[in-house]
């Protein structure tokens, strides 16, 4: 899980989750998810693992369950999280430490 590769196996496993995330391009669908998260996940037929990962807002678990980062970024947006927030979450760092690490890469 250091560097996930989204290949055919992941694409097959993650289809329902990614399809749900793709639906979030539409603001109405984002609102429907926020109104009733469980019903919205059911509508897309998410697996148990996918449902649990979404419920826990756990990005690594979503990737493990076949999620693709580009689609997951749309879901993260609903919770007000950007790619730096989810970078911090995946690396187990505070947001400040993660940002400092990025800045230090320029030295």
């Amino acid at each position, binding site marked *: 899980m250091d560097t996930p590769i989204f290949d055919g196996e992941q694409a097959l496993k993650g289809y329902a989750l990614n399809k749900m995330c793709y639906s979030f391009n539409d603001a109405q669908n984002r609102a429907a998810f926020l109104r009733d998260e469980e019903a919205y996940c059911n509508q897309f037929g998410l697996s148990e693992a996918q449902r649990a990962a979404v419920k826990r807002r756990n990005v690594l678990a979503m990737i493990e369950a076949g999620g693709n980062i580009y689609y997951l970024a749309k879901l993260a947006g609903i919770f007000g999280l950007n*790619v730096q927030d989810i970078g911090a979450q995946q690396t187990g760092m505070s947001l400040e430490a993660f940002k400092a690490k*990025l800045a230090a890469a*320029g030295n």
Partner: protein
Amino acid sequence: MARIVGMVTTSHVPMIGKAIGAGLQQEPYWKPFFDGFDGVHDWLDRVKPDVAVVFYNDHGLNFFLDKLPTFAIGAAETYRNADEGWGLPAFSPFRGDPELSWHLIESLVADEFDMTTCQDMLVDHAFAIPMALLWPNASPWPVKTVPISVNTIQHPLPRAARCYALGQSVGRAIEAYPADLKVLIIGTGGLSHQLDGRRAGFINKEFDLMCLEKLVSSPLEIARYSIATLIEEAGSQGVEILMWLAARAALGESVRKVHMNYHIPISNTASGVLVLEPSES
């Protein structure tokens, strides 16, 4: 005859769109990035392209995994930008050049690049942000456009050498186009960055600087890399250098460097911009 005036390759991080919207260009965080475009604007004022052929990667706005082309090309009168899930304001629509699109399609398919053709195509931040960086506050956009999308979402991705060959084929097709047009090639994405996994936040300055140098003098040395090597060295999403390679290839062998800027970080990304012109050799 049509003529390629040069190439601009640039990062396309979504957060740049937010910064443009909020007018943050001169804030300390953003200044080293946006100031890097002054040289681009000067050059564009001088060469005044009529049309831009844009190599970019869709991030799940126009394409989903139900039907995901490896290489796709727009053939529409207009391309719209739209909400990608974050509720950001959309950029104004981009004019297409269907006649040039179909010329490219004919030429590319004859050259064994079997493109997916799109008469209805939304263009995401990877297409729109570079346009806004090249022509800030432009209304309408001063160029017509032809989008060419390369799959970087789902593996297997096209090899770097294949993307390079695609760019070469696009370059030959443009040079054979009878209309008197000045064509700009744009390539978007990169440079090194990784959004996913425990290695998220990975940036590789040394590799990026090497690429920026080799893109000018010996791009085939980068086109030789496997996708696995590019991901190892540039991060999962740093693989977007494929778009830079395709754009560079369209220019032909010999080029002159006009302008370059490199800055770390913009969001999770090492940002870069490079302007090259074909040189008479």
